[in-house]
């Protein structure tokens, strides 16, 4: 819209949104409603932080995929001529005590962390949501059985379990993802079940039953869309938690094993020399914080965009 200040004409003249009554009426009759996807996308776009978070995350994932070709050095390329260097032109994030390029290692470490984060997020959400909806919708024995198992899993001490499994299996990014999924999906299941209990007695679910809609479709069409808000938010929390948990496990020497870098084990490496070479802690630490934040912002935006009652 063109700035109208100083224009002596009628207040709305020139405003493209306002039409003469007849034209508006004609338009009104013809108007094709927006599709669901367009509506959600429009709402999401208005959420600045979420958009920014999404963009940053996409960049991070693009970087992770492109790393093998784009990284300036090899992650295990030792250069004793240049160890413990502060950030410079050649080494934008400095080098560690073996002269390995810190930026290269942050990029490779990101591959592990982002893979674990995404994998854990997707699988925990799928399993947890499915179990939660089933348990809450059917109730009775199904509920007692499933929630009993969930409670059992929730009582498992995370770090102790990682310790045991680390002794039994070789911890690769895939196995560590599986272990963290095992630890985190029960959170989702518990949360979703609680929401489903509230939703399933709503009259619109009763109405669907009266129509004869099969249980499977009631769960997909009526229950799921009404718990999706908490699912999305919890999913982002789980992604952030998974990245942090992987970092913690690697920090304790139970996760990804050197020389393969992950943000967590890079922090471990940097622990002893934190005062002398602070950049070695800053960069992996910063990446963990940025990723977790972006995922949370994205979740906020998605939750609001998926809520039809949100004010445009």
């Amino acid at each position, binding site marked *: 819209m063109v700035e109208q200040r100083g224009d002596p004409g009628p207040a709305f003249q020139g405003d493209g949104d306002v039409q003469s009554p007849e034209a508006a009426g004609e338009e009104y009759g013809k108007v094709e409603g927006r599709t669901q996807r367009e509506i959600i996308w429009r709402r999401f776009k208005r959420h600045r932080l979420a958009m920014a978070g999404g963009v940053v995350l996409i960049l991070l994932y693009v970087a992770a995929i492109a790393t093998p070709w784009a990284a300036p050095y090899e992650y295990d390329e030792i250069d004793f001529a240049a160890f413990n260097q502060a950030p410079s032109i050649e080494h934008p994030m400095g080098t560690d005590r073996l002269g390995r390029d810190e930026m290269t290692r942050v990029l490779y470490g990101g591959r592990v962390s982002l893979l674990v984060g995404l994998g854990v997020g997707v699988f925990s959400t799928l399993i947890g949501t499915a179990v939660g909806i089933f348990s809450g919708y059917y109730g009775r024995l199904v509920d007692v059985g499933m929630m009993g198992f969930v409670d059992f899993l929730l009582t498992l001490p995370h770090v102790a379990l990682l310790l045991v499994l680390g002794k039994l299996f070789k911890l690769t990014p895939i196995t560590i993802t599986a272990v963290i999924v095992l630890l985190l999906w029960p959170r989702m299941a518990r949360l979703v079940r609680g929401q489903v209990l509230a939703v399933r007695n709503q009259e*619109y679910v009763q109405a669907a039953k*009266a129509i*004869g*809609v099969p249980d499977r479709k009631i769960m997909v069409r009526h229950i799921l869309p009404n718990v999706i808000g908490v699912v999305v938010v919890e999913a982002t929390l789980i992604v952030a938690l998974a990245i942090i948990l992987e970092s913690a496990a690697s920090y304790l020497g139970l996760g990804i094993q050197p020389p393969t870098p992950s943000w967590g084990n890079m922090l471990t490496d940097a622990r002893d020399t934190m005062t002398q070479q602070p950049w070695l802690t800053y960069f992996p630490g910063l990446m963990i914080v940025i990723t977790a934040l972006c995922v949370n912002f994205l979740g906020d935006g998605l939750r609001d965009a998926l809520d039809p009652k949100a004010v445009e």
Partner: protein
Amino acid sequence: MSEAPNGGSHGRPDLGKGGRTSGGSYLLETKNLKMHFPIKAGVLKRTVGHVKAVDGVNLQVREGETLGLVGESGCGKSTLARCVLRLLQPTEGEVLFGGEDILKYDRKRMLRVRRDMQIIFQDPYASLNPRMTVGNIIAEPLRTHKVEGDRKRRVQELLEIVGLNPEHYNRYPHEFSGGQRQRIGVARAVALRPRLIICDEPVSALDVSIQAQVVNLLQDLQKEFGLTYVFIAHDLSVVKHICDRVAVMYLGKIAELADRRGLYGEPRHPYTNALLSAIPIPDPERERERRRIVLVGDVPSPANPPPGCNFHTRCPRAQGYCKEHVPDLMRQEDGPQNGANGADDHRASCFFPVLEGQKIEKPSESTPYRAVE
């Protein structure tokens, strides 16, 4: 019964009111229907008792008529409705739809019956999925029952029938007012052209000015599609306006059942008398002279209903006999509206019914009234 209960409801000619009624058979009938909810207590979740929400209800609804179901909150009206639709599985009894007991139906046969019976809920805010567009909500019955044809057009037709703008099919429920939402609920209920619609307090949650519109809409639809209604309400004036026959419920049982004129003109059960005396008269002169029968005490808990007649704790006419004997829903012999085949009989479950000209407070008989049947 000449027609199968699941005979295709689509493409079938719209018969006029009562056009298919053959004498002595009913579209819907409940026989000794009971819904007892277990009360669980303690760590082991032992059943320590039952809430007798519906406790032995016998009702008959004929095709094309509107049966009103009135009573206080918590008397079991809505539970009864949900049992009839099998949203709850009753503890005991039968629900006959078109002569067949649908409680024994398996999933597949039940699905076919669902085409013919629908429900309109009380709360237009809770009965529409906030995440679905109006178009999807109304199309859901069509989709579920695989109705062929242009569904979008059909949905728009339905929107028009209930008095909404057909262009609004892509909007969400929260964009509508209470009355409009209830119209959406009505559109969903009539989408499959059912034979029976259970209206569970369809206007109680609406503004008085909107109530009339929705009631009129329901009446128009009944005329147009030959619908049968079970109309649940606690507003006796609305029921008087729309219903052919009225059943009064108290504590899970039918207290009185009669056609409209009989029930409003000559109520026999003391409870009905008390209810009717509570209707305000829109005339200040007469309103001042109106005598109200005020019942003492609260409705007893349905978990522990009184022995004998369940109304005796509050009944101004109760005698010793009432505390020990349970009255049946007895035919009122001299009921003015008694029909030829017994369907329209004035019935009340009271040993000392209020006969014409009697005052409610003084029980004038000491011999209990008995049905002759």
